[in-house]
C-alpha cells in the first residue's frame, strides 16, 4: 500500500486554462516514471483525457532526459489521440547545449577585409570591422553588422532564423540572404545613399527589405539587450 501511495506522486497532472501540465518527479527512477505515466494515462479520467484536443506541457524539473527517454515519453503521451505535446520544460541542460546556447547568443567581433573567394562564417551575431569585398561572403546564424562596406554576399540567420537582420555602414551587396530567402542586388547602385542601412525579412511582404538603420528598433525590438 505504501508503495502504491508513493507511485501516485511521481506523475502529477494539472489542468490550466491553456491545457495540461504534466509534472514529472525528478528523483524517482525513470522506470517508475514510465510505469506511472502509463498507468495514469490509461486510467479513465473522464473527458479530460478523451475529449477534444488538449495541448500538454511536460515539466521534467531537474531531471535530464536523453533523446531516447523523451522519445519514449512522447510515445506514451501520443497514445492518447487528443493529447498534443506543446513542449518539454526542464531546469537542466547539458554542458554541450549550454555552450551551444552561449555561442548562439554571442557577438563574434572580427576585424579584417573579407576578400574575394573568402568565406567568414560564425555562430551567433557577426560584428565585422572591415569591408566585405565583391566575391567575399559573410555568414552568421544570428545578425550581421558590418562596420565598413558590404559589397559581397551576406547571409544572416543562416540556420533558419528569419528574424535576423543585416546592417552595414555602406550597403552595396551583390546578394543578401536571410534564412532561406535570397535577394539579388539591383543591377546598378546609385552613386550616393546606401549608407547605414539594414536588411530584414518583412513579414507582411514575405521578402527581404532594406531600410534606414534607424527603423530597426521598431521592427526588431528583441535586438535590445539593455
Amino acid at each position, binding site marked *: 500500500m505504501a508503495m502504491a501511495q508513493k507511485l501516485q506522486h511521481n506523475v502529477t497532472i494539472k489542468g490550466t486554462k491553456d491545457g495540461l501540465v504534466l509534472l514529472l518527479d525528478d528523483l524517482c527512477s525513470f522506470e517508475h516514471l514510465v510505469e506511472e505515466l502509463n498507468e495514469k494515462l490509461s486510467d479513465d479520467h473522464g473527458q479530460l483525457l478523451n475529449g477534444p484536443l488538449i495541448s500538454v506541457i511536460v515539466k521534467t524539473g531537474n531531471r535530464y532526459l536523453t533523446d531516447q527517454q523523451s522519445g519514449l515519453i512522447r510515445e506514451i503521451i501520443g497514445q492518447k489521440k487528443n493529447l498534443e505535446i506543446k513542449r518539454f520544460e526542464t531546469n537542466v541542460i547539458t554542458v554541450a547545449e549550454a555552450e551551444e546556447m552561449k555561442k548562439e547568443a554571442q557577438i563574434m567581433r572580427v576585424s579584417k*577585409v573579407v*576578400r*574575394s*573567394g*573568402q568565406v567568414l562564417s560564425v555562430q551567433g551575431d557577426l560584428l565585422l570591422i*572591415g*569591408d566585405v*569585398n*565583391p*566575391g*567575399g561572403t559573410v555568414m552568421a546564424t544570428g545578425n550581421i553588422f558590418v562596420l565598413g562596406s558590404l559589397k559581397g554576399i551576406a547571409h544572416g540567420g543562416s540556420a533558419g532564423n528569419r528574424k535576423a537582420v543585416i546592417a552595414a555602414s555602406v550597403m552595396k551587396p551583390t546578394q543578401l540572404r536571410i534564412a532561406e530567402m535570397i535577394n539579388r542586388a539591383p543591377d546598378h547602385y546609385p552613386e550616393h545613399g546606401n549608407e547605414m542601412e539594414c536588411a530584414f525579412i518583412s513579414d507582411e511582404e514575405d521578402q527581404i527589405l532594406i531600410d534606414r538603420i534607424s527603423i530597426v528598433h521598431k521592427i526588431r525590438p528583441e535586438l535590445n539587450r539593455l
Partner: protein
Amino acid sequence: MGEAIVITSGKGGVGKTTTSANIGTSLALSGKKVCLVDTDIGLRNLDVLMGLENRIIYDLVDVVEERCKLHQALIKDKRFECLFLLPAAQTKDKSSVQPEQMKKIIMELKQDYDYVIIDCPAGIEQGFKNAVAGADKSIVVTNPEISSVRDADRIIGLLEQEDVEAPKLIVNRVRNHLAKSGDMLDVDEIVSILAIELIGVVVDDENVIKAANKGEPIAMSPNSKASIAYRNIARRILGESVPLSTIEEEKGFFSKIKTLLGMR
C-alpha cells in the same frame, strides 16, 4: 642575407613580368645584387623581356631535377654585372616543381643576392604556390579595371594564408584621362577596395611595349614616365620614402585619410 619578393596578380597579362624585369633592373641600377627568377614554367617571358633568351642553357626544372647546379643555370645580364636571371623551363609544366623545392632554391639564392625577384604566373594554382613558397614579401600588380582588381583581391586573400609579409600594391597601365572622365577605376578607388599599401603607380606607356620588343627594360631609358615610376618603386623597396608624385598620381588614398585625421 637578402630578401625574396614575389610579383603576383591573379589575372594574366596585367604586367607581372614587365614589373619584375623593371624592378630588378632598377635595383641593379642602384648597385644591388639582384637575381630574377621566372617561375612561369611553360610560358616563360622574363628572359625575352631582358633580351637574354639566346643565353639559356639550363633552367629552373634542370636545377630541381639536378641536371645542373644552381649557379650553372643563372644567366648574367648584358648590362649589369650584379643582375642575374634564373629562367623557367619552356617545355615542362607547373607540376614539375614542388613548393618545397622552390623554397630551397630561393633560400640558396638569398645567401648570395640582396634581392631575389620572383615572377609569378597568372592563376591561383600550383604555379602560384610555387612562386610564393620561398618569398618573404609580395607585390600585387593590378590594372585599373574591375576584373583585374577582383582577382587582385582574391590573391591578397590567398597571400594572407601564406608565410609572407602583407602585400604592397602596384597599379599598372593607368591612363589618367580615362580615370578623370570616370571611365576607369581611379587609383584611390582601387586602394580603398584592396586596402593594402600602395607602392607605385605606372602609367600606360607605349614605350614599355617597344622596350619589351627590343629586350631592353624600360627602366634603362631614364626619360619615360613608366621608367621613373619603376625606379621610384625600387627606391621604395630600398626603404627610401619617395612620395607618390603628381606624375604618378594626384593625391593618394592614404594621404587623404591622414588629412582627415589631422596628421598632415
